[in-house]
């Protein structure tokens, strides 16, 4: 991997945002909408349930913030590839001295930057509007964020691999893939709620992060065991996603899929 190459690829993405501020709407608007909806729902439930208010409801705001980190990281990887498809720039990039590792590293950086921008915004607003402080997660916050980033990157690589393999018609996967797993990710409810389907949840690193978040918010103690399991699962997922991505890129070169993208 070459740092200068990665910087150049990231620079291209940063230019996009400085050139077209309307893109910030996509980056900031939807997370903000989610925060407001879930935040005011929480406020409503609080005001109508009085003493019977289940404190766990406040975790929804934390869930919205953490889910968005995962989603933005995934988007950073998948949309990065699609930007080149949409602008018919794909062949220019793949004919340039760029390795798979350079390309992936650049998508990770973009995913991180996207997640950093939205999570900072949501963190500040949730504190101001709903008195929810994400920093309550204490020392568990950073490893939780890191695990969600890594899981998002892995999902992004899988999304991109599927899009490359199946062609532009599969573009919608760039947005859909995270929502395929959301019901099993224990974002807004505990894993136990899933009943017989809980085994799916137990295979997903993010479900341990969300379970850990709820435990920390409830007890004030960091759930290191959940963080450890999430990290282990993420290592496996990232390795598998990397293998899938490289294999699909090899298939793309064999079947001329990249040139087909360029001509469509």
């Amino acid at each position, binding site marked *: 991997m070459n740092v*200068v*190459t990665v*910087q*150049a*690829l990231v*620079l*291209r993405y940063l*230019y*996009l945002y400085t*050139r*077209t501020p309307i893109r910030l709407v996509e980056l900031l608007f939807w997370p903000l909408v989610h925060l407001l909806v879930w935040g005011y729902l929480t406020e409503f439930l609080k005001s109508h349930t009085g003493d019977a208010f289940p404190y766990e409801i406040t975790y929804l705001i934390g869930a919205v913030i953490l889910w968005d980190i995962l989603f933005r990281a995934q988007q950073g990887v998948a949309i990065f590839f699609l*930007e*080149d498809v949409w*602008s*018919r*720039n*794909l*062949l*220019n990039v*793949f*004919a*340039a*001295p*760029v*390795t798979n590792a350079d390309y992936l590293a650049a998508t990770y950086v973009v995913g991180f930057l996207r997640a950093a921008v939205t999570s900072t915004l949501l963190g500040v607003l949730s504190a101001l509007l709903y008195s929810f402080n994400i920093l309550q997660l204490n020392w568990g916050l950073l490893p939780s964020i890191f695990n969600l980033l890594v899981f998002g990157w892995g999902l992004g690589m899988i999304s991109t691999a599927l899009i490359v393999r199946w062609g532009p018609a599969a573009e919608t996967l760039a947005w859909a893939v995270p929502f395929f797993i959301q019901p099993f990710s224990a974002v807004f409810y505990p894993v136990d709620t899933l009943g017989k389907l809980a085994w799916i949840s137990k295979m997903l690193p993010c479900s341990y992060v969300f379970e850990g978040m709820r435990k920390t918010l409830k007890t004030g103690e960091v759930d290191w065991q959940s963080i450890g399991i999430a990290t282990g699962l993420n290592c496996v997922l990232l390795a598998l996603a990397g293998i899938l991505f490289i294999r699909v890129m*090899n298939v793309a*070169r*064999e*079947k*001329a899929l*990249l*040139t087909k993208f*360029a*001509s469509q």
Partner: protein
Amino acid sequence: MEPPVLRVSKLTKTFGEVNSVDGVSFAIKKGEILGLLGANGAGKTTAINMVLGIITPTAGRVEVFGEDLHASRVELLRRMNFCSTYTQLPGNLRVWQNLNVFGKLYRVRHLKERIDQVLEMLEISHLKNRVSGELSAGESTRLNLCKALLNKPNLLLLDEPTASLDPDIADKVRKVVRRSRDDEGSTILYTSHNMRDVEEVCDRVVFMHKGRILFVGTPGETLQHFKEESLEEVFIRVARSGEIESDKAGKEAGE
């Protein structure tokens, strides 16, 4: 003896039952401009994409500067560049931003000065701050060429660089291509459907038809061989009759 800048040996690409490129061999000497000619579907673009490593050959070998492309692709690509009528630079970036990104990817030294230089070569310095997506087709093609010339490539691959250009701009582009060879020492593989381009620019031509090489020679030798008055007539004859002179097919050019 110095190895050819590009040597393609028995290059083959098969998609299912179709041989897009069928055992093609040719070589380009340093400082040479070789035209790769043929009708649509002849296999020119597929061959170029294999030289760039974007498509993996079914069989055969690509050597650039004497090294196997697949063994050291990234290092070799740093000394190459490419421009195709089928690609564009991101339309939502300014002209200088696009060139800045690709200049960094190709490790161009003194990048700002080089960007000014290539823009001037293609006579689009006044567009430096324009948004690329707002350029006309001709301006956009010239911007693509700027990108291709940024790193003073030792091997430049041009896939129909004058398509969509008016005669005046096409003439300027041909001059730039020759200047790139004469002043910057580039070796060039050039495809075009514009036979005027080929006559003016190319030292030798490779005629392809249905994935195979029909003839290799200078433009003059080509006319003599096919007993035609112009390359355009040769092109039309080959495209319509599809005659394959098997004695010439596969003969390695440049050797």
